[in-house]
């Protein structure tokens, strides 16, 4: 797997999402819950805008000095007995991790909390080299059993209901109990416990790496990260190169924003921090520790107008307020990063060829920008993508180009514009019935397929205005 999660066309993905009533209802009610939680937490905090500003400043500062902080982080990790590897590409990251697993002669790898390993396709790579990989996050585990990609950043199996989960457990693991959440969770726990105890290598992602101390922090609600980071002897952390903060204080600010913005919690059940390998005088920690810092296209974003997209702390607040996401679901974005941030990030990481529709899958309502706790101007970045698609990539439809050229001529020429205000009604007359167009021609078709279009008025405003002005003049003269 890579950033891209499938091969079907944009149109098919949209139709599939819209036709999936169950998914839409699940997403809609989850959005309602998350949004309510976020707003009430923000209100309780009192000065949410100040917190957002601070969060944004921390992210900006970190990215502007990313070389310094990455160097500091790697020095600290090495000082604490860890190995650090900088991977330029997905292949380099996978190769390094495969070698660690091979050297260990590991048969089983347990993983938790990592989107970046989905992005680089680590599971496939490890399985090819002979190791069994077990996702231990409940949602991820369900998806792994069902061979289904994630559809949400925080709740990856949001599109599935408990009946579907029960069926998956029954088909793949011989589960024979009910679809009650308690019984399903107990079964998953019992199954996963064996994996935790028998795994040779633990792999996790990273919410925030702390440069000053070399600690890696994970924010979770299930506690599986504690199993992954404390049981296997060999530990590997895989992080996107931007997922770091300078200090513990900065981390505290960002975690406060993250948990509130994501699910409306003040704190999550667990915030885990772990540092390097076990040193001689210490009693716990892994024998062998590796930090893999993945670039995979990120450094290309630095210094561009899209730099603030790297502010993202994967809270999914933008996804939770997006009406487009609500109606089409996460899989429609064809990326492990769905929703507004996905529409911004995916073309940056994976190019426009397979993702040129994504920046247009937004009404630019700016709900995402408003919700983002680290102030990424998401809807503006979608417009920037569109500019690149039109002007640099030249991937916009010919008919649209002609229309926009026409628009520019029309709107920069007052005489032509005035003429159009006079003739618009006549031009649409063949399609007009009872002052509405119900089956419009050309570009109007997309509109009238789903709603009626009002016919231009009998008199344009400017015609009315000039008549009125004449009338006043005559009145004045008489």
């Amino acid at each position: 797997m890579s950033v891209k999660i499938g091969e079907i066309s944009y149109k098919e993905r949209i139709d599939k999402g819209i036709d999936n009533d169950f998914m839409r209802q699940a997403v809609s009610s989850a959005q309602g819950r998350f949004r309510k939680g976020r707003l009430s937490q923000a209100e309780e905090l009192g000065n949410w805008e100040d917190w957002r500003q601070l969060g944004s400043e921390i992210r900006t500062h970190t990215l502007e000095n990313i070389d310094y902080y990455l160097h500091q982080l790697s020095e600290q990790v090495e000082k604490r007995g860890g190995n650090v590897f900088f991977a330029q590409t997905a292949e380099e990251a996978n190769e390094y991790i495969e070698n660690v697993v091979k050297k260990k002669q590991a048969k089983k790898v347990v993983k938790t909390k990592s989107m970046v390993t989905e992005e680089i396709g680590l599971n496939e790579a490890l399985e090819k080299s002979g190791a069994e990989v077990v996702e231990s996050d409940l949602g991820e585990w369900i998806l792994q059993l069902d061979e289904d990609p994630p559809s949400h950043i925080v709740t990856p199996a949001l599109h599935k209901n408990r009946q579907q989960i029960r069926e998956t457990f029954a088909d793949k693991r011989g589960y024979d109990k009910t679809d009650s959440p308690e019984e399903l969770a107990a079964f998953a726990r019992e199954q996963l416990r064996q994996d935790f105890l028998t795994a040779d290598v633990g792999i996790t992602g990273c919410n925030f790496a702390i440069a000053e101390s070399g600690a890696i922090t994970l924010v979770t609600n299930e506690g599986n990260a504690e199993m992954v980071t404390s049981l296997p002897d060999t530990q590997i952390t895989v992080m996107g190169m931007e997922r770091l903060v300078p200090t513990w204080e900065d981390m505290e600010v960002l975690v406060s924003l993250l948990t509130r913005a994501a699910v409306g919690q003040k704190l999550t059940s667990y915030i885990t921090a772990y540092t390097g390998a076990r040193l001689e005088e210490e009693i716990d920690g892994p024998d062998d520790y590796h930090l893999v810092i993945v670039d995979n296209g990120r450094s290309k974003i630095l210094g561009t107008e899209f730099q603030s997209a790297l502010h993202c702390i994967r809270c999914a607040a933008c996804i939770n307020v997006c009406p487009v996401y609500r109606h089409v679901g996460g899989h429609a974005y064809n990326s492990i990063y769905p929703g507004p941030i996905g529409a911004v990030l995916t073309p940056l990481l994976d190019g426009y060829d397979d993702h040129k529709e994504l920046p247009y899958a937004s009404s630019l309502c700016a709900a995402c920008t408003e919700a983002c706790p680290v102030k990424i101007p998401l809807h503006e970045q979608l417009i920037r993508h569109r500019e690149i698609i039109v002007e640099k990539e030249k991937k916009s439809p010919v008919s649209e180009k002609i229309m926009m050229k026409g628009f520019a001529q029309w709107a920069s020429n007052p005489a032509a514009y005035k003429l159009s205000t006079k003739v618009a009604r006549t031009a649409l007359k063949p399609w007009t019935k009872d002052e509405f167009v119900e089956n419009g021609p050309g570009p109007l078709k997309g509109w009238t397929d789903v709603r009626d279009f009002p016919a231009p008025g009998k008199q344009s405003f400017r015609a009315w205005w000039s008549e009125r002005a004449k009338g006043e003049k005559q009145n004045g003269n008489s």
Partner: protein
Amino acid sequence: MKVSLFITCVSDIVFADVGKHTVEILERVGCEVDFPAAQTCCGQPAYNSGYLQEAKKSMKQMIKAFKNSEYVVGPSGSCVGMLKEYPHIFKGDPDWEQPAIDLANKSYEITQFLVDVLGVTDLGSTFKGRVTYHPSCHMTRVLGVKDAPQKLLQSVKGIDFVELPVKEDCCGFGGTFSIKNPEISREMVKEKSQHVSETKAEYLVGGDMGCLMNIGGRMRREGKDVKVVHITEILNTHREGGIA
């Protein structure tokens, strides 16, 4: 006070009445109103679709048209919001940056102008009817006008005002989005139409004709009998029996 009207292309061509109500309201509060005829469209359809060069041609025309105006007032949050983006778009352009800043600084959406500049919250209007209000996304989030329309509406005598559920959700218009992604747009506007029905309002009021054209067009397609009107129409009404 001298005010130049910015009538927006949709209002000029399709909804001339919105412009008329805007004129009458401004005159009622004592403004001297003019209409610079060289104005065209704010450029939003091209800008939001990624056609920056094409959009700039339209924007330069607008800057020229309003060069000598003291205030520019328009009946659309979205289009006025676009004018406010001009300084950012022309940043670094030696010929156009300053004129763009000048235009942005003197431009207002009509309810914003009434409340924030003139300090008027009660126009002495009377309107009988059950009314709900859709706050359009660009008016609230891009232009930042949240309270002014509601303040004005709530001061209308006789009005039966009811809140629209999840009012902050986009109606699915989004300019060319409604044509480029009609299926997604349809689902969004269906939901909005459903929320309007839940209020049992007779009138849906808004500050952007694009959104109202979208919601109204959908409700008509669904056979619903809700009148969709621009806020100026309510504010400019003195009849007891509502709008005919």
